[in-house]
């Protein structure tokens, strides 16, 4: 059966989260020469219809990019016991569902270190998308990393909004970034989906550095993006598609240890990252992978040890 992929509201080409999912699906399609179904949601209310329509049409497995599918999937999963579902960023406890969650705090920790090491002002910024625990998890990891690299570092944090619209508001992303720059930030990390396009744009326009998220966004403004926190949604989608109808259900945690999380260095940003920065970060990554260094997960107890 054809697999299917449903993107969240930010849209397939948000250059970030959804686009990562798309990349994974494309990779699978190119490698296998097979086809898949996909749809971009236009509104909250369509989640269930999209899910059902694919299930009705016999798509299998059906992958959903985004936590917001949780409740729709809860509804639908039981009605199609023979269909396998995979949901990203959310845990749904159904026998035919694979829940893929990422240790975003780990990757954010790494880019936080890079940001603090690169910053000349000692102030770095964070622009989140929708204000939800998941994004706070990014922020918290980032702050921890920055403080680890420079205990005196100041981190300015802003969230874009409280609704899914916060994923697709580049104007607001840019304005928030400009505000942070005026407060002294010279590196700004975003975890804001399509909104981040505006963040990186503003950073580039104002001559400071941005940090991308989810996908490798270094190419968007070569030399102006310090790095990108890689959340290998593409791998998750690729794996789910590859597994096909034999998809293993249950919870799958993707972290530094299993290559699900990382940071990006390529020709667009190699000049920005010195050897010692790289060494420091790689060391931390190794420690996290080995369990020697534990980055606090905001979602574990809804608190963050550092501000």
């Amino acid at each position, binding site marked *: 059966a054809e697999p299917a992929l449903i993107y969240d509201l930010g*849209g397939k080409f948000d250059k970030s989260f959804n686009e990562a999912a798309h990349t994974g699906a494309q990779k699978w399609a190119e490698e296998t020469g097979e086809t898949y179904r996909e749809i971009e949601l236009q509104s909250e209310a369509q989640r269930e219809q999209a899910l059902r329509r694919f299930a009705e049409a016999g798509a299998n497995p059906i992958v959903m990019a985004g936590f917001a599918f949780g409740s729709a999937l809860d509804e639908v999963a039981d009605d199609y016991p023979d269909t396998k579902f995979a949901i990203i960023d959310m845990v749904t406890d159904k026998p035919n569902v694979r829940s893929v969650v990422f240790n975003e705090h780990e990757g954010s920790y790494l880019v936080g270190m890079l940001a603090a090491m690169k910053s000349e002002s000692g102030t770095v910024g964070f622009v989140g998308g929708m204000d939800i625990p998941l994004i706070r998890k990014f922020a918290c990891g980032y702050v921890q990393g920055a403080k680890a690299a420079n205990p005196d570092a100041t981190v300015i944090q802003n969230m874009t909004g409280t609704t899914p619209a916060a994923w697709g508001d580049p104007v607001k992303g840019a304005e928030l970034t*400009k505000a942070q720059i005026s407060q002294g930030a010279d590196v700004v990390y975003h975890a804001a989906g399509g909104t981040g*396009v505006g963040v990186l744009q503003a950073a580039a326009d104002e001559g400071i550095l941005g940090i991308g998220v989810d996908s490798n966004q270094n190419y968007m403004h070569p030399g102006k993006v310090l790095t990108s926190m890689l959340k290998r949604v593409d791998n998750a989608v690729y794996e789910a598609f590859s597994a096909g109808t034999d998809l293993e259900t249950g919870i799958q945690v993707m972290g530094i240890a299993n290559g699900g999380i990382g940071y990006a260095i390529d020709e667009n940003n190699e000049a920005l990252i010195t050897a010692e920065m790289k060494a420091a970060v790689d060391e931390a990554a190794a420690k996290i992978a080995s369990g020697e260094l534990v980055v606090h997960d905001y979602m574990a107890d809804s608190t963050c040890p550092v501000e």
Partner: protein
Amino acid sequence: MDFLTLIQILDSTIRLATPLLLACLAGLYSERAGVFDIGLEGKMLAAAFLSAAVAYVTGSVWLGLLAGIGASMLLALVHGLASITFRGNQLISGVAINFLAAGLTVLVAQSWFQQGGRTPSLMGGARFEPITLPFADALSGVPFLGPIYGDLVSGHSVLVYMAFALVPITWWILFRTRFGLRLRAVGENPAAVDTAGVSVTRLRYAAVLICGVLCGVAGAYLATGLQAGFVKDMTAGRGFIALAALIFAKWRPWNALWACLLFGLLQAVALRYQNLDLGGIVIPVQVMDVLPYILTVIFLAGFVGKAIPPRAGGEPYVKER
């Protein structure tokens, strides 16, 4: 709130007020001539898309601007056809134009760029870059004046300066020229214009097309100045806020400037703060988002001042004895 933050917020206000101001002045021409226009939003949106698309394809933001104006004028023409030539309901026509733009932009963007209804990001010459005014750098060291001139006044794209310059120009056109006299007359009593031997149809088309031009600039600014590309529904209600500002301004150019700056300020504050803490009272961001609309309703209710629209507004001109 310290001085620098204030400058930042005002700076952001100017950027955000610009599309409102352009659209508001656009509406002013149309409505002063007696053609109500709730299709500002749609015209801006169409212009935003086509300007971004053409700027991307050609790499020239000026060509993009022209294309955006063209798209907006095309919709203005439809509005003119419906409300002037075929004497249809201007409100319904406006509603239709908004939907037409909302649908067509995504449809065409999707088939053109295959990026889920958006254009690729614009780079370099495909965008309006900020202009640094003379002496901005020289003055940057001066306290107080430096930031005001250097950050607040200088450093916007050419369209911003154009929008602000349009306020006195519009005033002058409306109140000091023959065209303005006739335009205002046709919005108050078209029969007077008609019997004076001047074509009501031509005047109204002129007004509607000027409205199209300005909406086009507003849309182009959104996509190529404020942002770097088109995304679906990127006007996000700005056309309606501009309409609200127009009512708030009682259809007068200078008032329009103040109204748009006020609404721009509200947007700037809403962008910057999730919740605004005013000494213990926390104003949620949603309140700031809807404040322009609430203010307009209060204003419309006539509790503060009275908004009297042009008398012949909204009505097609039918010859009567």
